[in-house]
């Protein structure tokens, strides 16, 4: 059991032993994001090198890489919108057939420390849509969270998220009964300590979506050190 990046977590060991807990308690820091609110709340100045590794930004605003070498290109603040865009409507269900996800979605707010709330931890608890992100189908990055494990199993709602591949499709049913169909652009595994906030949550010029869970379980510390992120964009919508 040297696998530091096991997704199965601490319970894998006991599961292998053929039994699964009884008095499982939720730890004080689910998924253990660095120090709570480090990004949002720290009032002090921090200047530390190196900065976070530059992730590949979503096909979004800003400078195109090819132009970045020349002296600055003219950069419109609001690049032209591409692809289909839907009016706002709260998401109520996520279906990702390729990895066996079919779940109700609930709105998630923010914890007092500025981090996102997370869904419940019991088996069968739903996924969550971050209610301060665009609704899936609107312009911008809609954010949907699911736990990688749950309190009864190392295999939670989004346990198989890391299996997703570019080009796969999944759908979100919305309160207006429309079904928004998304296509996977890429899968990313990022360190929590250097979470690329703007690449994940920054503005986009399409209706995009992020499916996020945890990864990188460190057996030594019992903490989840990474996030697994599926980037996708809206390709179509229909009514069932």
């Amino acid at each position, binding site marked *: 059991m040297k696998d530091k990046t096991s997704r199965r977590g601490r319970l894998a060991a006991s599961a292998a032993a053929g039994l699964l807990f*009884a008095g499982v308690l939720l730890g004080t820091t689910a998924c253990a994001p660095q120090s709570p609110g480090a990004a949002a709340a720290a009032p002090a100045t921090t200047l530390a090198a190196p900065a976070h590794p530059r992730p590949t930004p979503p096909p979004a605003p800003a400078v195109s890489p090819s132009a970045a*070498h020349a002296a600055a290109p003219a950069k419109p603040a609001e690049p032209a919108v591409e692809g289909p865009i839907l009016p706002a409507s709260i998401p109520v269900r996520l279906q990702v057939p390729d990895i066996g996800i079919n779940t109700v979605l609930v709105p998630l*707010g923010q914890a007092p420390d500025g981090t996102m709330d*997370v869904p419940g931890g019991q088996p069968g608890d739903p996924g969550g849509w971050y209610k301060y992100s665009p609704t899936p189908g609107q312009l911008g990055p809609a954010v949907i969270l699911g736990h990688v494990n749950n309190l009864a199993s190392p295999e939670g709602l989004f346990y198989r998220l890391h299996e997703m591949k570019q080009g796969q499709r999944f759908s979100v049913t919305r309160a207006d009964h429309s079904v928004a169909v998304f296509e996977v652009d890429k899968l990313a595994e990022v360190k929590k300590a250097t979470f690329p906030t703007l690449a994940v949550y920054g503005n986009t010029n399409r209706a995009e979506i992020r499916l996020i869970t945890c990864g990188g379980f460190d057996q030594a510390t019992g903490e989840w050190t990474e996030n697994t992120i599926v980037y996708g964009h809206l390709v179509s919508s229909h009514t069932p």
Partner: protein
Amino acid sequence: MYKKSAFLIAPALALAVVSLSGAGAMAADNGTTTYQANLGAINGSNATGSVMISLTGDQATVTENVSGLAATFNGAPYPHVQHIHIDGKGVCPTPAADTNKDGVISTTEGGPSYGKIGTTLSTSGDTSDKAALDLKVAGMGASYSYQRTFAMNAETIAALKAGTGVVVVHGLDPATLPAAAQKEKSDLVPSLPLAATSPALCGTVVASQMGAMPGGAPGTGLTQTAQATTGASPE
């Protein structure tokens, strides 16, 4: 055995409370507005960066990550003065802004595009334009992360709301300039070379599509303390 409600952090009741307008995400409950800027290279700096500004009233928390800037200057970490420019066209300058044709867009030449300095993103002390050229409170080195909360002046806030705020990070590696330009003096501080004060990164500040930017990484894995005995089978 389980207290389900205790774990369900987002009550389903919230569904009933949420109401959305047609435009963008709902605003945060606390009146915070989030802005962002993707910083692009200017003058061939090959640097990259990003800025987020979370504004509640006049309290601004600025979070910035940059990399690929000039690393050293006279054997010490290169000081990169950085500002939010305001009241210009709200854009970054194009090569056409190089009016003296020396191959470098100087800070002055970029002025019509991004305007005057509204706020200095200093690491301590004054954040007004008076601190604009204080190298001691500049960002330092090739790559750095900056985070600071301060009272933002009304002019800068107005520019952010109007979409005319532009973040500019200054300081080029002199060796990357055309030979003639390497000998030029700074248009701002004649005791410094032109490279030292010329723009290296630039990005227009725009309102975020997120009603509130979440802080840090989401906690989507549960930490479990197991008092292992027999019990439920895995899901």
